[in-house]
């Protein structure tokens, strides 16, 4: 099997570090992206199409990160990109927003079950922050309850005291609870009557470095009732799961109704738009909050979003992505087992998390992932993965072959 070489990637990275902090910052970079060892990973892409991307050395990867979620139909989907290009010819960033914004808003409200209105921005973090502001504006309260390990972006309130750039005041209105622990939420609500503006969580728990966990039976229904009884806004961060579990929203998937829902990644197949959906009772509050951005009402991503959502509905994407995910992960687990490795898969199959559970240091897992990446299957070590619609059975078969060889190498090296 061909082993990738990354000479041009390295060369370009050395240029990048001179002019860009950390060379590549954030989750796409080698440090935060946990490229372990870095020698196994590409740094820069040259092009992307369907289920693949090619790096600057010409190596092709079957991509299981999908740009960390936005790519749900595959790279450069012709219908979505075609709609975007058509809109670009008409106009994009204009003094008055395009009429297409209303069309997209109507589609969102029709698609997302809980939505009476929608507010557009650019990134997931824009709308999680807005959700907190709307909840505070509506309730006149300042405290929020968050789940330990939950990710809601990088705004100061989402981080921790002690992190560089974060001060005590940024997080002093946050309470943190363990996932699936309803009693803990209930206790905080009772101990702070009239103080809690919002409970925000992802629809299921998908932290990094830890097995993903689905909600316990009745968890969301109990949280829903608690929030309703105490006038707390229930905000769901559906940025990662949105349209991957259920086109109507992940609250529907788990059998409850949220007050606010944050969408981003899969909404427009890589075109930059995010959305906060809300119930009617919060519409005035949303209108009252001063919140905007230079590019938030640009028309091209709206056109892409319309094409993307329509296609996702037409192909019943959540069902089929989960089937593809199951086929892939069942195979990976079984191949691992044949080599004596316990590959543990958690979360929903279309965005599964995996780790080799034979040691608690992640060392074996990091070695296995590195061997897979070197051979052209792009996994990452400690983040959940993503399936896209363009992934074929042939790609899954090829991935299984790569995984088999990587497990074989690991076995030879360690046992």
């Amino acid at each position, binding site marked *: 099997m061909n082993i990738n070489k990354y000479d041009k990637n*390295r060369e370009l*990275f*050395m240029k990048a*570090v001179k002019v860009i*902090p*950390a*060379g*590549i*910052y954030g989750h796409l*970079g*080698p*440090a935060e992206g*946990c*490229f*372990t*060892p*870095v*020698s196994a990973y590409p*740094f820069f892409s040259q092009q992307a199409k369907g289920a693949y991307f090619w790096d600057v050395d010409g190596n092709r990867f079957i991509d299981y990160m999908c740009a960390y979620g936005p790519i749900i139909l595959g790279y450069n989907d012709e219908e979505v990109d075609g709609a975007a290009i058509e809109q670009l010819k008409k106009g994009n960033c204009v003094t008055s927003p395009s009429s297409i914004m209303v069309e997209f808003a109507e589609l969102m409200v029709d698609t997302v079950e809980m939505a009476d209105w929608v507010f557009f921005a650019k990134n997931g973090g824009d709308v999680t922050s807005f959700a907190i502001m709307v909840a505070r504006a509506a309730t006149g309260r300042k405290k929020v309850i968050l789940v330990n390990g939950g990710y809601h972006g990088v705004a100061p309130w989402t981080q*921790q*005291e*002690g*992190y*560089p750039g974060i001060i005590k005041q940024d997080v002093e209105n946050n309470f943190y609870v363990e996932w699936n622990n309803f009693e803990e939420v209930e206790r905080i609500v009772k101990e702070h009557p009239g103080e809690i503006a919002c409970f925000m969580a992802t629809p299921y728990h998908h932290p990094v*470095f830890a097995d993903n966990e689905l909600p316990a039976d009745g968890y969301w229904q109990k949280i829903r009732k608690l929030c309703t009884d105490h006038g707390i806004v229930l905000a769901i961060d559906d940025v990662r799961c949105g349209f991957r579990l259920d086109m109507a929203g992940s609250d529907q998937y788990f059998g409850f109704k949220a007050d606010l829902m944050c969408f981003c990644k899969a909404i427009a197949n890589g075109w930059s738009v995010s959305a906060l959906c809300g119930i009617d009772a919060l519409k005035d509050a949303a209108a009252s909050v001063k919140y905007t951005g230079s590019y938030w009402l640009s028309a091209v991503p709206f056109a892409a979003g319309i094409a993307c959502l329509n296609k996702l509905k037409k192909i019943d994407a959540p069902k089929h992505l989960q089937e593809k995910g199951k086929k892939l992960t069942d195979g990976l687990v079984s191949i691992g087992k044949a080599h004596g490795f316990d590959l543990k898969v958690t979360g929903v199959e279309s965005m599964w998390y995996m780790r080799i559970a034979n040691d*608690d*240091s*992640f*060392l074996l897992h*990091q070695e296995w992932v590195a061997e897979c990446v070197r051979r052209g299957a792009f996994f990452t*070590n*400690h983040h959940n993965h993503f399936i896209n619609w363009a992934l074929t059975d042939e790609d899954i078969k090829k991935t299984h072959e790569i995984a088999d060889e990587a497990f074989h190498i690991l076995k030879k090296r360690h046992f």
Partner: protein
Amino acid sequence: MTDHLTKANINLFAILRNLEDLCAMEDETKLIVKDCNISIQFIVKNGPEAFLILKDGKCALQKGRKRCKIKLYFKNPEHLNKMFDGKANPILLKGFTKLGFLKKEFPKLVEKLTYYLKPTDQLLKDPKYLEINTYLTMFTAFNAMVQIANHDRLGKLNSSRIPDGVVAISILGGGPSIFITSKSGCLEVNNETDKPIRAYMSFANTNIANAILNNKVDTYSAIGGGELEIKGCIPMIDNLNKLLSQVPAYVR
């Protein structure tokens, strides 16, 4: 934001502790302590206690109290820190007849330590200096980091997020290794361990270790360039890095 108690612990257990290594590594320092047979107790009211023993050409610093020939008392952690900054004198409780050591050999030791902890580009061209500076800087940084983790308010927050286990920090190519053990948010630094390693932070060589430790290369770039490898339980290292970023506020 720094606090005096954390700084006092750093001064004793990260800065002064370097005399142990310096006496073992550097010939002129060995000569200074060759004929010394002295012990110094440091007592800080509402602060740390430690004693320094110089005997048979070796030096050892330990926590706690022991019968010593010289006993130095400090009214509070700030008083100790001022002494380390050269702005205050200790209160001598015992050892009036041993003042010679404090006036003669001890300042020479401090001078040597300062020389090796304050590098210049010129000095770093000398391979022996580079080796000693790297070693001392590494041990100072990680010992200071442990004191921050255990005493500083923000440090405690960051250390509480470190999973239990041992992190090995090494300079590859024959350089030294140290081991940071985390247990329930408390950190300890050791020169060896018999416990399994859960995470690794490895500098490719002495030059790169020196450049990173002296803030000439940032860690993120070094990771991307493959000059600093991290692997294993990354959350341990990630939170150690957050602690390390607090060190310059205490050790300048």
